[in-house]
């Protein structure tokens, strides 16, 4: 009945790790990653040594530090709020009602990457109405445009991973109105994407120098630069402060996101799913 072979074959191999299908790349891979890590971390460390630990303390006390940082933070908040208020409903609407326009929307939202900020600010200053010119509101509104590629793509990636149409139909077939659907079904599933969009927008605003300086606003990055004329170490310290802050936040958020969504990450351009190798 159960035909299991008993006879001994001519060669019974002892337990061993034979050549796997594609072995041999491990050493090379780690070498690449090591060199890369060095290239990226060395400057940070060099800057740290250059500035000296004391510089961190003194930075905070420098004149203009808090006002410029405060300005940048305010701008970041306003930009993020406008961005999400604008991009989220638009993205959801297009996904649901106007899928044919998705391509166009993707194309439009990638334009700000194509158009150099330095050119854009020239144009904006040329057409801005008098009452907006010179206010930080104008800058925030332009930042929304700059943030569009990242924010839209993050939200879009989140929506694409959702099969939006199906869950909305399911929700309405169970009796939920629009507001409920948006609030209870769509939004919770987009937490990761929205977080991603927020982080990217904030990062962008806090690091944006070009438009702020040309629009004559002393945001944090501008202040760092202006300050460098007088005290190089302080500038370096401030730069590092900004960077470390981000690395921290984004790393924490990054790992938390992926644990929650079970191995999927919403990166800048896509939702990356870890590949599983089928069943055993």
């Amino acid at each position, binding site marked *: 009945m159960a035909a299991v072979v008993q006879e001994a074959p001519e060669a019974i191999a002892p337990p061993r790790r034979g050549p796997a299908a594609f072995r041999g*790349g491990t050493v090379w891979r780690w070498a*690449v*990653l090591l060199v*890369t890590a060095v*290239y990226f971390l*060395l*400057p*940070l460390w*060099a*800057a740290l*040594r250059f*500035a000296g630990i004391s510089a961190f303390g003194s930075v905070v006390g420098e004149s203009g530090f808090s006002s410029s940082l405060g300005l940048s933070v305010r701008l970041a908040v306003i930009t993020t709020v406008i961005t999400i208020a604008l991009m989220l*409903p638009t993205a959801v609407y*297009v996904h649901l*009602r*106007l899928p044919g326009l998705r391509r166009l929307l993707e194309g*439009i939202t*990638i*334009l700000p*990457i*194509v*158009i*150099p900020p*330095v*050119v*854009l600010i*020239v*144009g*904006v200053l*040329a*057409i801005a109405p008098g009452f907006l010119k010179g206010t930080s509101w104008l800058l925030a509104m332009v930042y929304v*445009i700059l943030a569009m590629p990242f924010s839209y793509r993050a939200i879009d990636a989140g929506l694409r991973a959702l099969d939006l149409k199906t869950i909305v139909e399911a929700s309405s077939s169970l009796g939920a109105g629009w507001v409920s659907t948006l609030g209870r079904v769509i939004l919770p599933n987009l937490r990761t994407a929205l977080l991603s969009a927020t982080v*990217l927008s904030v990062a*962008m605003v806090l*690091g*944006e*120098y*070009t438009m702020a300086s*040309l629009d004559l606003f002393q945001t944090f*990055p*501008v202040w*760092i*630069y202006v300050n*460098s004329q007088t005290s190089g170490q302080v500038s*370096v310290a*401030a*730069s590092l402060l900004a*960077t470390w802050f*981000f690395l921290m936040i*984004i*790393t924490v958020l990054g*790992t938390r996101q992926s644990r929650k969504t079970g191995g999927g*990450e919403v*990166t800048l*351009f896509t939702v*990356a*799913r*870890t*590949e599983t*190798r089928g069943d055993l």
Partner: protein
Amino acid sequence: MGPSVAVPGSLADPGTLSPAAPSGPSRVTLALRWLRRVSGIVPFAVYVTFGLLLPMVAVAIGAFQDNDGAFTFSNVDAATHGIYLKGFWQSIVLSVISSVIPGILGLIVAYAIFTAKRAQVLRQVAITAAGVFANFGGVPLAFIFIATIGSSGLVSQWLTSLGFDPYAHGFTLYSLLGVIIVYLYFQIPLMVLVILPALEGLRPAWREAAANLGARTWEYWRYVAGPVLLPSFLGCVLLLFGSALSAYATTEALTNGTIPLTSIQIGSFLNGNVIAGQENIGKALGLGMVVIIAIAMAFYVVLQRRSARWLR
């Protein structure tokens, strides 16, 4: 012994004609319906129009205006000669180098990350780090590199102590070469981020099928992975090109305007460091820049479409 050929069910006999369709909704109704459907997108459309399109139109128009508003080619003429032409040329050269090299390096790094399937943590960290560093630029970046390989930077001093002073041999951070080295810092992560999805599109089944059919690693790359990735790779390099060309802050912080580059030159028009009566040259420069990038992006879109088809 081929497969059974599916015979489509017989259709209604061709003699039957459907009765004339009743007249549909009126044109006005259809137009109104269409308007309602599109209304959801109006806020976005308005914002983009005022925030993006109109400014760009202003730049385009201004490029062809003289100070009194009359039509002229003089701006464009100035923009394509002399120091501005040099600026364009150097910007393009800089951008090409700062896109191809990080492109290749980024691909290698991305592949290293991608194939580290066992070490999930590593992948997580690497991708997150790439996200941060890709957005890292401008002033902080410039300063960090000044601290590293500036004239009194850490690595410069360390090399000097080893007996080789780079600055004595003509190297300086405040040059095109220095700028390229600094650009790598955000271009490589950007490449990693944009090429990773393409790499993820490389199905393991292809690798295994190729091996199963007798292909060695290099043959797999030559015949399968390479051709499949090529459109994506070129597309990403184009994206990097656009990114390098647009860069302003980093270069400004590093070079302070000493090297003629288009983005810096445009900025100087806003800063007022320019002879009065020539403001619109800046717009002409801007227009030129946008045209160059637009061409590059057009190719990018075409290449992405092609690779999307294959990597589905």
